[in-house]
Every structure is written in structure tokens, then in C-alpha cells.
């Protein structure tokens, strides 16, 4: 937890305690931990002097600022109309099948979380998904297996 406190402190030093700095600070914590823990929220509140309720209220508004634990790799499959028309469900099934979890869940090894998201802006190359910040388009169930295998291999190396 000490690490967490140091990390938040450094972030606040870097971005400042203005309210305008709140989103960048929250984003940086999510980038590192993949979610905002209660401790992180309290620490950010303490360091920035913004009420914890406001920090939580802001964080919980944004779909990319998760407030429940997520895997190291958060998969967000686009579910909006064009992706839905072009086989989003098959992609989801392939993900669930490969990871042996359901939509919304995280693998027991805390490596992957499967989520759905709204329009990613790749309708001309549907279906699309994000793995953290990386974009994958024109997906097929086979591609999904290759993509996830690569992430698994990357995690194994670390």
C-alpha cells in the first residue's frame, strides 16, 4: 500500500492539486492498477484536498475509470450497431470460450477481463475491440485466439 501512496503523491506533484488535474490523475492510477481502489480514491482525495465523495463521484461517471478490480488486460468489445451487425456476438463467444469466463468477469489469474463498450469508432472495420489501449479491428473468432495468446505469452515473460 505504501507504493500506492507514493505513486499517488508523485502524480499529484506532477499534475497539481487543481480540480482540472483530477481526471489525468485518475487515468494514471487506472493505467497502472486497472481500477481505482477505495484506498487509491481516499489517497487522491487527501493529496488533492478534493472531497473523497467528489473524487468517487467523478470516477464513477466514466466508463473507463473502473472502480471494481479488473484484469491486467481489459478487453472491451464494441457492441454498437455496426459491430453488432458484423458479428460482435461471435467475437464475444470466442473470448468467453478461450478464457473460460463470462462477459463482465475476470480470469482467476487476474490477467483478463471481458467487457462490452459503446461505439469505438471503427464501424468501417467492424467488429472491433480494445485490449487496454490497443485497437483490434475486422476481427474473426480465430484472430481473437491469436491476439489473446500473444498477450498471455507477454504476461508469462514478465
Amino acid at each position: 500500500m505504501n507504493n500506492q501512496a507514493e505513486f499517488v503523491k508523485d502524480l499529484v506533484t506532477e499534475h497539481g492539486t487543481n480540480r482540472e488535474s483530477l481526471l489525468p490523475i485518475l487515468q494514471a492510477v487506472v493505467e497502472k492498477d486497472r481500477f481505482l481502489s477505495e484506498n487509491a480514491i481516499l489517497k487522491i482525495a487527501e493529496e488533492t484536498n478534493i472531497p473523497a465523495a467528489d473524487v468517487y463521484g467523478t470516477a464513477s461517471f466514466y466508463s473507463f475509470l473502473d472502480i471494481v478490480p479488473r484484469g491486467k488486460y481489459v478487453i472491451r468489445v464494441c457492441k454498437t450497431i455496426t459491430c453488432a451487425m458484423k458479428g460482435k456476438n461471435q467475437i464475444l463467444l470466442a473470448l468467453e470460450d478461450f478464457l473460460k469466463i463470462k462477459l463482465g468477469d475476470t480470469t482467476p489469474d487476474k490477467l483478463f477481463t471481458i467487457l462490452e463498450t459503446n461505439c469505438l469508432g471503427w464501424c468501417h472495420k467492424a467488429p472491433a475491440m480494445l485490449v487496454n489501449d490497443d485497437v483490434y479491428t475486422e476481427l474473426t473468432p480465430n484472430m481473437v485466439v491469436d491476439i489473446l495468446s500473444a498477450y498471455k505469452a507477454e504476461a508469462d515473460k514478465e
Partner: protein
Amino acid sequence: MTTKTKQLNRIDLIFKNENDCKEILQKSFDRSHEEIINEMVNSGLKGRGGAGFPTGLKWKLTAEETEKKKYVICNADEGEPGTFKDREILTRVPHKVLAGMAMCAKIIGAKEGYIYLRGEYKFLVPQLRDELKKFHKIMDELNLDFVVDIFLGSGAYICGEESALFESMEGKRGEPRNKPPYPTQCGYLNKPTVINNVETLAHSYTIMKYGAKKFRELGVKDSWGSKVFSVSGDTPIPGIYELELGMSVQDFVDDFGDGDTKAVQVGGASGFLVPRKRFAKSHIGYQGKLTGVSLPTGGSMMIFNSSRSMYNVLNNYLDFFEEESCGQCTPCRVGCQQLLKGIKAVKRGEKPAAYLDKLLKLTDTMRLTAKCGLGQSVANSFSSIVENFREEMIY
């Protein structure tokens, strides 16, 4: 490209390979502010994000404000379903967008600018940072005190609404503000702010370079110029196309459809669905918004062929709105939930078909009473789908 005989004119202005931003800015800086504003006003350029506010007027109103601190913001929170052209513009010609921002900053007297980039496009940040380095060097050479930074969103469609975007930048929930006051008076940090769509800014570079007269050689009255369209759905050639404003949906479908087009959604989920029988009479542009004949759009063109269920389409849109409603005002928060529940109940036979009319009335109420464009525009797709494909909603 297709091999049809009659083809819409493909325009090559926005993505044209031009690397003279410094020279164009220098040339423009030598002119008076009034001249530049007149050029912008005369061009007839209207906001390319979808709302269509005259850009020159926006710049003029902000320039007239006496407040010392002002901001220029590029709205790159491209979240409307079916829209992806801003990402392409920021990828291929970011320097034109930045030149537009610099021009605007010079005129209104802003020293700080931001690109509000949706979180989904975070992968663009490194290349944009490189571009900003080059840009700031040009600003130094031109002696303009103007710095641009990137602000990342975090997955909220509503933050594309300008006042919600300011709230978000201020570290708050992205909840739209009451208007007036408008951003030209009271925007980011309550200072006068010009907020323009990515494409609008790129067009202003084109206007600086070629002049208002040249800009108006394209398009039709009240909808001058070209526009970048995001084409997706049931089409053999999905992608990004720059076309002239004023085209009919029929001409568009002849070019982009798969031969079996049943309907086209113009302007994304918050826009209108045009059924086949209206293709010929519907035109793409800003004029006559209320007649339903001219359709304003941020450039999203989603094509549906006869294999698609319009019930599924509407269900998908409502699911989207119900999730993306910020929840601040009751008409939108509860309205979206009830519309979604309502069409499902009708489909399952739990409610009579006439219940659809009640839901249509509800969208009228939302159009009148919702606080921002999100809640107000749910009525667009809802009514155009339910009225044209009523039987698909029931059976």
C-alpha cells in the same frame, strides 16, 4: 470505387497532402482580424460535428469578449455511433487542425488550446505529441504565444457535448450545463471559449489557404463546402469519403449501397433513419432542419440492407442512449429507460401496439424538456424508425 456511371464527386481537400501551414498562417497573420473573420463568415462554414453552428460567427462572438483569458478547444471526442472521420483527420492531417486552432487563437486572443481526445483514441497520443512539438516550433517562429495540450476523455459519449466536455476538463462528472450562457461567453473554466470539431478546424485551414469563394464552389445554399463522411454498415466499400454537401440520399445509396438498401441512418444514433421511399427526397445538409427533408449530420452514414431488423437497430440505439445518458435530468434518464423497456414489451406482446404511440409522445416530451442534445435527439431516431417500420416493432 464502384464502376457506376453516375458517381458522386469525390473531393480531395481535407486529406490533400499539403505542408505549408506555416506559410498559410504567416500570410493570414498579415491580414487584419476583421478580414479573417469576414472570410470565415463569408465561407458559410458550419460546424462539422453535427450541430452546424456557423463557425465564423462563433469566432467573431468570442473575439468580441473582453475577458483576458480565452481558450480554443478542438473537440475530438468523436463518439457518435457510425462516426470515425475525426480520427482519420487527426491521423493524416493533424497539422491542418492545429493550423485552424492557431488561426482562431490569434483572432480571439487565446494563449492556450486543448485537444479533447476520446479515451478510445488514446493510441493516437504519441503521434499527436510529435505533431505538437513541430507545431510549437512553428508558433515560436511566427511569434504567436499559443500552446496546445491534449486532454484525454475516459469513455463517456456525453462529453462530446461542449459544456459536458468543459465539465470533464474541469475534473468533474461530464454533465451538460444550462445554456445560455454559451461557450463563446462562458466556456472552459467559465472563460470565453471557441470549441470546434476536428473537421471544422481543418476546413478553416482550407478557407485560409484558398479563400471563402473557392470554398463555396462546393455544396449548396446554406450548406457550402465539402464534408467528410463515415460510411459503414451494409456497403461493399465502407470507409471515409469527402463528398459535397447537398447530395440526395438516393445518389449516396446508388454509390455506396449493396443493391439491397432498405434504409440509411444519417447522423448516427442521434440522427434520422431514412427509409427507401424517402431516399430521393432527402438531402444531406443543414438547411430546413425541421422539414426532415434536409438532414444535418456529423457525417455518420450507416447503411442497412433488407436482411436487417429495424427493431434490432432501434433496440441497439436505445441501449446505447440508456447507458450514455448522464442521468442528470429526468426526461432523458427515465425517458431512455422507458423507451427501451417499452419497445421490448410491445415486441413480447406484453403491451398493445398502440403503446408505441405513447412512447412517441414520450419522445416529444424529451425533445422539449431534456437539458441537452442527447435527450432531445433520441426522438429523431425513435420516431423515424417507429413511424416507418411500425410493423417490425410489433411482429
